[in-house]
């Protein structure tokens, strides 16, 4: 089953076309990576899928259901969770509180939400930090908390927007392990990332966009050898022919 299907998606901001005729499809249980230079439209594409912006054109299907103008909170309850590139923790609240907000998506009972949140914190090795205020944590922990809150909503598909940016190499390795574990628990992962080492190792398939258009798609090593991709990242002179 296709978990996510994006067909001819375009998004305009005034005269600027941020996403241009983008088509993507994702199988269930897959890790799909999305890369591209800064300003290529990656986050905008994410925001359209997550219901933050209504698409200008095209259709988005999630679990074979059209979700074009659905609101973020409804999508979340259907099983589509996301993280933010710039982390947005509820800073004055504890880590546990933050994750519980997520786990309330599937229950009205506080004790159930608390149990679910504690499970997620265990899964992410954050359990010992559960009583710290989220605002006092390091960036690596805050990125992890972002994932934790999203996981607590019990998603089928999770959109990860640069969860490794700003991390040290060892922390990147830990995050790669976490994302693998997330996929192994049956959740499909769609991620944007700039750290090539990580995204090459993680992704089953990789899509590249540039100026809102998809310029390549396929297995990571094929994409890395693609002429258009090298041009987009390094400029015309670097193409070896």
């Amino acid at each position, binding site marked *: 089953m296709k978990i996510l299907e994006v067909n001819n998606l375009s998004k305009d901001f005034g005269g600027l076309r941020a996403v241009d005729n983008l088509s993507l499809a994702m199988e269930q249980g897959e890790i799909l990576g999305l890369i591209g230079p800064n300003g290529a439209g990656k986050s905008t594409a994410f925001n359209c899928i997550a219901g*933050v912006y209504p698409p200008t054109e095209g259709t988005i299907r999630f679990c074979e259901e059209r979700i074009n103008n659905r609101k*973020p*909170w409804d999508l*979340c309850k259907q099983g589509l969770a*996301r993280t*933010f590139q710039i982390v947005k923790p*509820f800073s004055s609240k504890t880590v546990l509180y933050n994750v519980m*907000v997520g786990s*309330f998506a599937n229950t009205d009972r506080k004790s159930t939400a608390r149990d679910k949140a504690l499970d997620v914190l265990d899964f992410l090795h954050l359990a010992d930090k559960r009583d710290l205020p989220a605002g006092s944590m390091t960036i690596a922990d805050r990125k992890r908390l972002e994932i934790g809150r999203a996981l607590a909503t019990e998603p089928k598909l999770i959109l990860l927007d640069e969860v490794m940016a700003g991390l040290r190499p060892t922390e990147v390795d830990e995050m790669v392990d976490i994302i693998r574990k997330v996929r192994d628990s049956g959740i499909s992962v769609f991620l944007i990332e700039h750290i090539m080492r990580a995204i090459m190792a993680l992704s089953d398939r990789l899509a590249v966009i540039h100026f809102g258009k998809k310029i390549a798609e396929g297995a990571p090593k094929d994409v890395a050898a693609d002429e258009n991709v090298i041009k987009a990242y390094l400029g015309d002179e670097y193409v070896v022919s």
Partner: protein
Amino acid sequence: MTRHQLQILSLVLVGVVSFGLPLVLRSPTYLHILILLYLYAYLTSSWNLVGGFAGVLPLGHAAFVGIGAYTSTILSLQYGLSPWIGMIVGGILAVLVGILIGLPTFKMRGAYFALATIAFGEGIRVMVENIDYIGPLKLNGPRGLEIPPLKTGLTHFMFAGKEPYYYIILVMLILVITITYLISQSKLGYYLNAGGEEPEAAMALGVNVVRCKLIALAMSSFLTALAGTFWAQFTLFIHPKSVISLDMSFEIAFIALIGGRGSIAGPVLGALLLRPVSDFSRIYFGDKLPGLHLIIFGVVLILVMLYQPRGLQEPLTRAYNRLLDRLTGARAEQALGRSRA
């Protein structure tokens, strides 16, 4: 004694003192001051459901006080309905008005929301000041409405002494604090806090932020309107400047900010500190320096914002917890010290 038992004991102590106070305190002046203190603690606690938990700053809550006061007064003066029934009707009316105000304004952020609520509050006051009749209902414009003290007793919500009013507002205050506590422990409380702090993140986690805020505003305006009826029955005279005044809206916000927005104890602590300042400065300086209490409010607000930006509730809670630790954990600490040595 365990920590939990101590907490209950201190709550019971506060309860006994507040219920027993009128037996000791015979002066009507002091009772009056206490009643106003509880009234403001009640108003601020009701405000806190939106202004504290939902993270917005509404500055027009006096409008709901006015709706409550006018509704119950008109119903009892013109139709002979008990103010208790009018109280509920006023509450329901306030909910409707609150939702009408909330629908457009909750799309705004920060200062714009605050300004819009001031505009709504003032708009309602100006309307009431300029309307003598709505159909058969007599509002009496700027002259206000007087409630003749003919029949006293519980059903008429009118008493000769101040003690019954004291107990009524005390019970109302305890109820609103209980409601606040229950909400803070519920899904709605989590969602309100989340939506107030980071709306975008909250939405992505399944929170319909605007709907949660509307629910909070509906509850807040209902509870606030009940205080309006109390005010009317307590003073027996209402006019637009007394029950729909901007000063009242501001004072509620002052108390909340100084006591601690979004906490349960904050509104009560804020009222405990600020109401006596307001009353005593009026008693002692009222003839020579009118308005001094507002200057004192301002100074206190600046000091608190500089040194305790989350309100007085925070250091006081810490002190209270430390006291509990000392009382309960003394023995445990000694044991720990010995094992270290």
